[in-house]
Each structure stands twice: as C-alpha cells, then as structure tokens.
C-alpha cells in the first residue's frame, strides 16, 4: 500500500489519481502509523516551504518522515522539504538530503519556471530512470530549486542547471510534477512503485 502524506496542501487529489491510473492503491493520510507501515510513501507539496514544514510539525510527522526506511518520494515542494533547508522564508527542512534549496536565478527569463522542460544528464544505472530518456519532457512549476549534487539522477536547465530528480538510498525527489507529466511522469511513478520496500 502507498501512503500519500496529507501535508494540508492543495494538490493531494491529483497525486492520488496518478497512482489510481497506474492501478495502485493509495491512501491520503496524516496518520503516523499508516505512514510508517506503508510500502511506499509520497510527500507532495505546493505552496511555500515555511507553511508546509509547519503543517508537518503540527501533524507530528517530522520525525516519522525522518525515520522511514521504505521508499519515500517528495514531489515539487515535497522534494524541497527533504533537504536541510530553504532560502524561502529561511525554512528548515527534514534534513534527509544534504544541501539547501535556493531561489532560481532566471535572469531575464520569466519566473516562476512553469511548463514542460527536458530531463538531461540522466543517470543510467538507477532503476527509477528505467525507460526515461535524455530530452524527455516533464512539467515543472517552481521558483526555488536544488543545485546539482552527487544525489542528482537527472537535471534540467532554466537559466541555470538544477536537480530535476534526486535520490539517496530510500529517499527520492522530483522537482517536477510526475502526476502531470504525461507518459514520462507515469513511467517514473511506476518505476518508484517497483522499488522494493
């Protein structure tokens, strides 16, 4: 069973629907026991990091998420929350991934970074990237991002390169919205479900 963490943010339904389309059972929950016993956990998020982290603290879920051993995937703001902190409101994150989220330097380009952009420099030895090719498009909406690091499985570029997909051990993150990224996004979610708990 897959648990979608109820972070109080607004896009929970669409994340749940994406797994329904894959034929997977999911439950949207803020119950610590259900999250701990799930085979896979999704941490969704939209909005601002300080509010989202506060929502996790209010629900008593910070330590629960920090101690999960099954595959955990953060999506968009959910990915940013996996890091140690963010420039956005000086928010502290879950600290599961090293590094700090910073505002994107987009120069003369419009901000937020919104739309379909390509995946680049795809790690070819990670099962999460099975069937995903250089130049595949995924849907982004964000104005903060993680820089490229040893945990980057794929990057994308808007003004500067940034981490599009990250992984360290059981911790995964997608800066884009796989639930709204067509067949490519569905493939990534399907690959995630195949990761053994």
């Amino acid at each position, binding site marked *: 069973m897959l648990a979608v963490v109820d972070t109080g943010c*607004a*896009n*929970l*339904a*669409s994340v749940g*629907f*994406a797994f*329904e*389309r894959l034929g997977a059972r999911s439950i949207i929950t803020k119950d610590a026991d259900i999250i701990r016993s799930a085979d896979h956990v999704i941490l969704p998020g*939209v*909005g*601002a990091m300080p509010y989202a982290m506060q929502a996790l603290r209010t629900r008593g879920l910070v330590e629960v998420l920090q101690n999960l051993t099954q595959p955990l995937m953060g999506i968009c703001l959910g990915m940013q929350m996996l890091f140690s902190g963010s420039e956005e409101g000086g928010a502290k994150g879950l600290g599961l991934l090293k590094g700090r989220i910073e505002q994107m330097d987009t120069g003369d*380009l*419009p*901000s*937020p*970074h*919104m*739309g*379909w*952009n*390509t995946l680049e420099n795809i790690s070819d030895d990670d099962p999460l990237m099975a069937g995903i090719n250089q130049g595949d*498009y995924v*849907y982004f*909406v*964000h*104005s903060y991002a993680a820089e490229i690091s040893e945990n980057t499985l794929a990057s994308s*570029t*808007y003004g500067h390169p940034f981490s599009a997909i990250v992984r360290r051990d059981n911790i995964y993150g997608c800066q884009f*919205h796989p*639930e*709204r*990224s*067509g*067949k490519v*996004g*569905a493939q990534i979610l399907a690959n995630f479900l195949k990761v053994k708990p």
Partner: protein
Amino acid sequence: MLARRIIPCLDVREGRVVKGVQFRGHEDVGGITELAQKYRDAGADELVFYDITASVDDRTIGLDWIRRVSALLDIPFCVAGGIKSVAQARARLEAGADKISVNSPALIRPDLINELSAAFGRQCIVVGIDSFDDGGTYKVKSHTGAANATRDTGRATLDWVEEVIERGAGEIVLNCMNKDGVRTGYDIKQLQTVRAICNVPLIASGGAGTAAHFEDVFKQANVDGALAASVFHKNILPIPKLKADLKSKGIEIRI
C-alpha cells in the same frame, strides 16, 4: 529547454463546452471530459477551463467535473470562473485543479490576488485579463461572459498587468478581445507591449487561425504559451500537425 505551450481553452457553460465569436453567440462543441481526453491525446500541453457564465450569474463553478478531469488527465489544467475567495479557490485546487485563474472578481477586489498568492503560492495563481484595443489604447473589460453584461473597468491594461504581478500573480493570460474567435492572428503588437513589462509567464489568447499565427506569436511576442479554442474545437488545426509544424520552424515544442 523549456517548451512553448499549446493550450486549448474550453469555455464551459452548464456542464458543456461552448464557443462563441467575440464573446457572443455561443454554440455547443462537446462534453467536458470527452474533449479533455481528446486534447490530452492530441498532445495539448495544458488545458484551461473557463466557466464563462460564473461571474455573470454570480455563482462559482461546480467541483464534480474538476474531480473527473483531474482523475483523467496526466497534464496540468487550470480552472477559471467566478472565484472570489480563498475558500472557493481551495475547493477547486483540492478537487484536483493545478491552477486557478481569476478575472472579474480580481478587478472588483484586487486584494483577492494577494490573498490567493499568500495561501497557495504564486505558481498556481493565474490572472486572466480581457483587454480591448480602443484605437491603440488597451483597456481592461470585465464580465465578458455575456455581451450585455460586459463592463468597462476604467483600467489601462498595462497598469493592471503591473499591478497583478506586484500582487502575486504567477501567470497572465491576455485575452485580446478584438481578436477573439475571428482567426485572423494573435494581437502581436499588444502582446509585445505587455511582454516587455511582464516578468511572469505570459499566455497569448485570441485570434489563432493558422500554424503561422502560432509561429508569429512565439517568435515575435516571445510568449510562453498560446491559447486557442475555435481552431481546435472546429478541427481547423489538429494539434499534432500544429506542433510538428512549429518544431520544424525551430520553436521549442514538446512532441
């Protein structure tokens, strides 16, 4: 590279998709989920649903169809129509809409934009602007869903664009009213003028008739996306062919 977006716009009235010419005389063009699926399959990058009567009838859009569309679609979609409060917006986002677009209610109470942006982040707050070219001066109109309800707002388009960005809009859809539904090309001059002061994503709307019109608006007005309705509803311009044409002209397009 970030792709330019092709965005079919579905005007919704009483649970059906309709289309008029210059905001008048609407005809039925199909069911909501049926058309949503058709455009997704054809390669649309995003969909916008406008409940065109919501502001006029002083009500807000239903939620059931948003849920059905969200369950069906694996591309983003935006809903618009009579959203006047954070609570109304939250209900739509929770039903599965990715973005919400406000137009007339923001003109009546501009603080709505600040409130929505603070509650959900600017990335899901779109402001639609119905702009009328009054002899070279661009003016904002409101309540354009019905011809006899359309009002002058006394606002200049360029001032309103700057104000909504300042207030927290994450994207602007500029509907050039003189061009709506007539398929003679986007209003390049007006879009260039707005682009010059718009540092959030800008979507062109009104006037698409041929692939060349899309090419022009991307190359000349540098917009992030182009919205169209009648050319898609009437099958004048099939999306796969349009996208292939644009890509062959050197425009970054998701195929």
